[in-house]
């Protein structure tokens, strides 16, 4: 079965990132169409399409847009979240590097819908190549009259600015991102208020993921019903899955939401090297609870994965075969989150430090059985108690690993080796 490419349709073309290439495949026709519609009609279409945010939480994009007060006295901002830093996630990067105009067109349409005249693209500092492509694409869009004053003679004005982050995972959290654009440390803000009420520089703001915005031109061009007909009724459209780890053909696969996880790994990923047994799979980026080998027969959509106790997240699927030490996996995760915690919330700042310490000690053969319950207690209190979801993102996978691979931990502790 081939992929069902919508967003990735032209990424393999030479010069796919240029405006010329984009125009030759019908680029910016959605913008023309959108500018002939009323802003509310666009939001309605996106709502009707069922498009859910591709940044991790799966929040319906059209509904989010409708939170922006239509008669705001303050300026409205849109921020495109291109911070993609979650371990195991690399889907946005391809769009940024190979088909940036698609995303830019989506941003312009979204801005028109929410009456924003200033858009930011926040790209992570470690993607200089993508940043260069985006900057070039923005300049091309200005040259062609898709950005700036009186876009395509519609009377609509929009400026777009690329903002390059300084290298922190937490700046991908939407309010950490806003702080960062404002020139401050990327420390998430307590919610409420939500960005749609008080966002960038205190003004109503929408933050959307790269892939979310890249879907928008296709919805406008082909219609909300078309988009809604792909995937499952509550999980519409295609999704770019980033497959990595112990698979023969790692990479990106664009498939309808709801694709079976085993099918993704076996059919598209070509199974594990040497046909080794799968031990665990992280289905949605490092923050998602892992599935054990017997949980893989599952539809990869937001609701089904959530019902199974994990989350679709960024749909970065990491496959771990039987050669992997789950203790090292857990410790590696704790290490990452410990270093990336912004340090505001005690459960996160101290909890990630504690988990890393205990897991390292267990790995080094200095652990005790009681440690396992401490880990589970700490994880449970790190969930749902903090300002942002980074603490949850640390606790969920670690908790699942200790629960599902407790035998491995206990054996390792009893053997006392490293």
């Amino acid at each position, binding site marked *: 079965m081939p992929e069902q490419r919508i967003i990735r349709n032209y990424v393999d073309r030479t010069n796919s990132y240029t405006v010329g290439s984009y125009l030759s495949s019908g680029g910016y026709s959605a913008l023309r169409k959108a500018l002939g519609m009323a802003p509310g009609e666009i939001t309605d279409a996106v709502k009707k399409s069922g498009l859910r945010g591709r940044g991790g939480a799966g929040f319906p994009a059209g509904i989010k847009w409708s939170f922006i007060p239509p008669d705001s006295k303050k300026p409205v901002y849109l921020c495109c979240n291109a911070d993609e830093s979650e371990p195991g996630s690399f889907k946005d990067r391809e769009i940024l590097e190979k088909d940036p105009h698609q995303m830019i067109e989506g941003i312009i349409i979204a801005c028109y819908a929410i009456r924003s005249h200033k858009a930011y693209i926040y790209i992570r500092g470690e993607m200089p190549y993508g940043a260069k492509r985006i900057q070039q694409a923005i300049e091309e869009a200005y040259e062609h009259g898709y950005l700036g004053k009186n876009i395509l003679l519609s009377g609509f004005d929009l400026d777009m600015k690329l903002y390059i982050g300084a290298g*922190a995972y*937490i700046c991908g959290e939407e309010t950490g991102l806003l702080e960062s654009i404002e020139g401050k*440390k990327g420390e998430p803000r*307590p919610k*409420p208020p939500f960005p749609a009420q008080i966002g960038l520089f205190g003004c109503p703001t929408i933050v959307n993921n790269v892939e979310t915005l890249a879907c928008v031109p296709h919805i406008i061009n082909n219609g909300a019903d078309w988009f809604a007909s792909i995937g499952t009724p509550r999980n519409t459209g295609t999704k770019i899955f980033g497959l990595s780890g112990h698979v023969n053909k790692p990479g990106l696969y664009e498939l309808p939401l709801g694709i079976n996880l085993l099918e993704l790994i076996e059919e598209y990923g070509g199974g594990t090297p040497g046909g080794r047994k799968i031990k665990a799979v992280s289905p949605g980026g490092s923050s998602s609870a892992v599935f054990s080998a017997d949980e893989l027969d599952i539809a990869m959509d937001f609701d089904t994965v959530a019902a199974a106790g994990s989350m679709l997240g960024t749909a970065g699927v990491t496959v771990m075969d039987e050669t992997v030490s789950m203790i090292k996996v857990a410790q590696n995760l704790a290490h990452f989150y*410990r*270093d*990336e*915690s*912004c*340090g*505001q*919330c*005690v*459960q*996160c*700042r*101290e*909890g*990630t*430090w*504690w988990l890393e*310490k205990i897991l390292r000690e267990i790995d080094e053969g200095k652990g005790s059985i*009681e440690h396992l319950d*401490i880990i589970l*207690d*700490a994880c449970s*209190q790190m969930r*749902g*108690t*903090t*300002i942002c979801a980074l603490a949850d993102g640390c606790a969920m996978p670690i908790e699942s690993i200790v629960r599902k691979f407790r035998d491995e931990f206990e054996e390792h502790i009893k053997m006392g080796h490293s």
Partner: protein
Amino acid sequence: MPKITIDGIELDVDDGLNVIQAAAVAGIEIPHFCYHPSLSVVAQCRQCLVEVEGVPKVLPACNTTVRDGLVVKTDTEKAFEARKAAVEFTLINHPLDCPICDKGGECPLQMTTFTHGPGYSRVGGPEDKKVRQKSYLSDRIMYDANRCIMCTRCVRFTDEVTKTHELGTTGRGFRKKISVFPGKTLDNELAGNVIDICPVGALLPKDTLHDERVWYMEFTDSVCSLCSTGCNITVGVDPRKGEVSRIRPRINEEVNGHWICDRGRFDYKEIQESTRLKDPIMKSDKDYEIASWENAINGIGARLSGMKSGDASACAIAGSARLTNEEMFLVAKLSSTLGDCPAICATGTEKIEKKFDLVSNDPYPNSAGARNLMAQANGDYTKTTIDSLLAGRIDTLVVIEADLFEMVSGQEKDALSRALEKIGFLAVIDYKLTETARYAHVILPAASSYEKDGTFTNDAGRVQKIKKAISPPGKAKPGWEILCMIGEKLDKALFSYGSASDVMDDISLKTPGYGGMSYDGVGTVGKVIEHGAGR
């Protein structure tokens, strides 16, 4: 007014309150570290977690605003466990060195650990904790990063209250700490307040480090005497040392909010360490001798009685805006008992250089009181009297808590010392040896503002009480008592007050604007004089 329910208690609360404030109305204390009523809400420490009906997650009470129908539960197992866990997390890398921490005994983290804490550690011993360097944010304030719980109250204080922006957090996650911006130091005039608002012993005054134990201290509510704002303070006295060992702000939203300036906080030491007068001293021939109160007062009494029957214009009394209302009233009364003897307010001309609204540029605590209670002591009158003093026309002078040399400048200083050298009789009442006192025939040791009762009228016309926190050194006495002792020599009935409060009762009967004023009425937050009186 929204109607809310907290732990089953129904109450109507003011709009805009958060759940910490609303719970306090119901007498329920929700532990919190980052929330401070005078700073913005950041909901960072995650200690104040409670359950709200209809919300699956626990919520921070500080960032939850009341609304009609809100049902809050602080006492459910889920809420309590969340707060208990927050304490455990907070203590993971906390040194728990309470026995040697100056905050011990008045530490919100310590108290919350008692009410919520697990009581034992699952982390291990000190060797299992991260250890960081102590540092100094200024010459006066020490920062112990090990104890810091990253509530950022100190940072917000410098961002929101002083707007001086000396502090920030550096580093991320477990590496995060409080830092002073390069090239800055935390030395603004209000900086010391971070010590009070720090909910742990991470910010401590360097000068008293390892020198204070709160449970030994006795506290007295009082008012600062170092400028005309009249910030409300508590004076902490360590009875083991018998001296004032700290001044802290006392909340009065009408005057100083939660803050005081660093002069008010630290300058008590200057008073304490100045050469204090401890005994009455009389000059005999060329020598000074320690005298008894009786002899000294008799000496002054005899001299003034002589003036009373003689030429009153050859006599003067000089007080200053450092006096309490009661003392000023007694000075004025003394002067009228003596007939035409002028009472002047010999207040210096220096001003405080200040940056913040809180601080007044008038370094005297009772300038408004002087305008009302020593009404005849207006500027012109004072000038004329000083002129006659310099011209040698004044032969008897009583000076209380004033230094005439602060009023004159340059050449006049020489003229003043010549006049004082020749004067027939000079009595000085003060807590320290002033320049003027060097010419005195009788010196009476007075109590400082930490050692006596009284009231000041601040620059907004608010009458506020100072209270005796500690006994004056040696045989020193409060100024009002000394003035009464002298007055009794002239007219016993007129000056037989039993306390400063009795004097105030008399003031209330006789002074425009002070009608109805009493120590009870002034209470802990003061009372504003009637409109139209000189503020």
